[in-house]
């Protein structure tokens, strides 16, 4: 990549080559050449909702990256009394799908995630000569504690800390958008109810001091 080609620009170019049939820009440009006709239904633009669909693009993570991703995701969201582990609800596969997507936001996250995974394993190699997923629980926690952002990270951990923040946010999103986690979270919707909408029970109205407006 040429040095005077900015990263954002490069990403745009890359995105454009990956997904030629769709206009990726959210806003229209000055003029755009008409893309070719699309004779058949386009998977994302006109999806078939009766079928579950994961991103139809190539997934970029290697086996090794997926292993590290799984170990770290399960450390962040483990199986416990609140619900399943991240890997049990497909968070590693979701992260792979996310970072491989042909959109600018996901590509930017992808650079942070893939670079961060490499950084993490180098750090693990330096400390214990093993990749992250082969460390003991205590060894994993010790490294994560250095980068998890609880305190201001040391300069040598800054890259790891930025990676952890993005990684944790994506894990949270991927985890709680899986219906198997909803009970533990306290979301009890998406089920049909008969009769009028029940509204807020009286005891809660009183607890919140809302009698005058209820």
């Amino acid at each position, binding site marked *: 990549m040429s040095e005077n080609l900015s990263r954002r620009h490069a990403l745009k170019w890359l995105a454009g080559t990956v997904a030629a049939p769709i206009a990726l820009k959210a806003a229209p440009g000055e*003029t755009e050449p008409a893309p070719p006709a699309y004779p058949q239904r386009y998977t994302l*633009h006109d999806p078939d*909702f009766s079928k579950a669909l994961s991103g*139809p693009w190539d997934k970029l993570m290697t086996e090794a990256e997926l292993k590290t991703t799984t170990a770290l995701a399960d450390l962040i969201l483990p199986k416990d009394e609140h619900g399943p582990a991240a890997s049990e609800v497909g968070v590693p596969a979701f992260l792979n*799908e996310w970072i491989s997507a042909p959109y600018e936001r996901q590509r930017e996250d992808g650079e942070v995630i893939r670079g961060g995974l490499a950084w993490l394993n180098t750090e693990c190699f330096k400390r214990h000569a093993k990749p992250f997923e082969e460390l003991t629980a205590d060894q994993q926690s010790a490294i994560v504690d250095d980068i998890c952002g609880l305190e201001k990270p040391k300069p040598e951990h800054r890259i790891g800390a930025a990676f952890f923040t993005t990684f944790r946010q994506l894990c949270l999103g991927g985890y*709680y958008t899986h219906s198997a986690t909803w009970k533990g979270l306290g979301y009890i*919707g998406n089920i049909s109810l008969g009769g009028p*909408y029940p509204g807020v029970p009286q005891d809660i109205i009183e607890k919140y001091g809302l009698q005058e407006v209820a």
Partner: protein
Amino acid sequence: MPLLTDRKTQPQYDVIVVGSGAGGGMAAMILALSGVKVLMVEAGRNYEPATETPMFNTPEMAPLRGDRTPVRPFGHYDATIDGGWQVPGEPYTNKAGTEGDFWWWRARMLGGRTNHWGRISLRFGEFDFIPKSRDGLGVDWPLSYGDISPWYDRVEQLIGVYGENDGIANAPNSSPGVLLPPPKPRLGELMAKKSGKQSGVPIVAAHRAVLSQPLDWKNLPAQLFPGNPKAQEIIGKDMMLRAPCFWATDCIRGCSIRANFQSTTVLLPPALATGNLDIITDAMVREVIMENGKAAGVHYIDKKTRRDAVVKARIVILAASTCETSRILLNSKSQDKAGLANSSGQVGKNLMDSVGTNLGAHIPALENSPILNEDGAGGLHVYSPWWLVNEHSKLGFARGYHIEMGGGRRMPQMSSFSRLDQTSPGIYGSKLKEEAKRYYGASFSFSGRGEMVPNKDCYTELDPQVVDQWGIPVLRFHWKWSDHEIKQAEHMQQTFAELIEGMGGKASPKSGREAIQRPGEIIHEVGTARMGAKAGDSVTNQYCQTWDVKNLFLMDGSVLPSNPDKNPTLTIMALAWRSCEWLMGEMKAGNV
């Protein structure tokens, strides 16, 4: 019932309706119920809500957990298929140097944009029809609130709208018994209501096109279609088949049980049941064809075969959506280089969208809130009508806005946990799950929808160089907000901040210029072929009939002379119904 006819058309129709959304769907239904032979021409594909609505799908069944992308701007499950602000093969342009690019939302599907919307159904009020008389800006309508109010009643009874009569100035009451009871407010909405009381902002039941109970199918049809037993029978049967809301899933996905309003579930089935309506889909209209000074039919491109075709009728109704209708007129140049029905020069002018901005915040009192099912009606239960309608002299900007709001325990999405970056850094493991549970549903946000004043810098025209993949010249937009809109957005931000602080949250309002959303982003574009009292300065009369061509009608948002803060769909339907009744009188009298 399949919603598609077999692409065979009759040699001659009474009326061609271009577009199948709010205006086109209503026009086709009213005419077909009265025995008029109608051909509907729709640019998008066939769409069957009964089988294609992902009502209960969960995010893990979708790419990127259903999150928003440039291809699916409202998320994977948005009912808009084959559409969006960008449609493959159908570009549009923005004039260089105009301020802010206009975004043009299209829904290339049967039912058009009625498949995706908030179902917020607010009547324009008495003052909204006389804006120029009140503040000297824009133009007055050629009809008054009193002229249209009976049609509002009819539309509300037909589609089913929940709400209450609050007697607030310029937020009209419906006739007694017309509205369905609104659902009870959610916890956050009650807190907002209390905060509104402190700051003088009324928060009342929203008006939305969602059935909170079954429609009165025994009595309503006779009220709506007196003297028309066939229409009564068809509408009665159809009303019986519509289920009331079961308080789950987001309305923006569409509604396969037909509890909410969309053209495909409420207007087109009874219209087809008459046997008087044929529909051809995938038919992209290029122009209105003229013979002897009258509209004779439309010329369209069959998108499946890429062949040109012509269909004919005595009367043509364009209801292709505001900008598309103007585009068809501008591309119809058989008589006049300026485009068809454009002797006033007003086609494409006066383009307006709603002024939009929003502000949300974390509400500490909602942390660890009680576990309640807050799906509700798949949209807001309460809203604020514009409450300062008589205080404009103090405000420094014209016109007003209403407030939409929401929050609480909604279906989790990718962005639902972004707050934890601030509240809970450094936490992982079981403790993180406790934090997620604590902060989930503790956000609440307000959105403003305000009236912009038409101005000479906001218009659309044909791009002299660019065509779409069907070879049809595309639209080029020009845009500039005036100070009225910027100041209004600023006022919205200040009001929202006050409401948030009243709820115990900490707000960071932005300036109006920073906060105002993009033109076209609210998807309430109207104008471009406004109605008026005389031919010199408007495109149609009050019955949507073009001044220049007596048998050409426009029945979508294009005819609106102003864009009150109220979402336009209800008004588009009321105008279409009223205009079709008038049109049938003119047909009988032999005037068109």
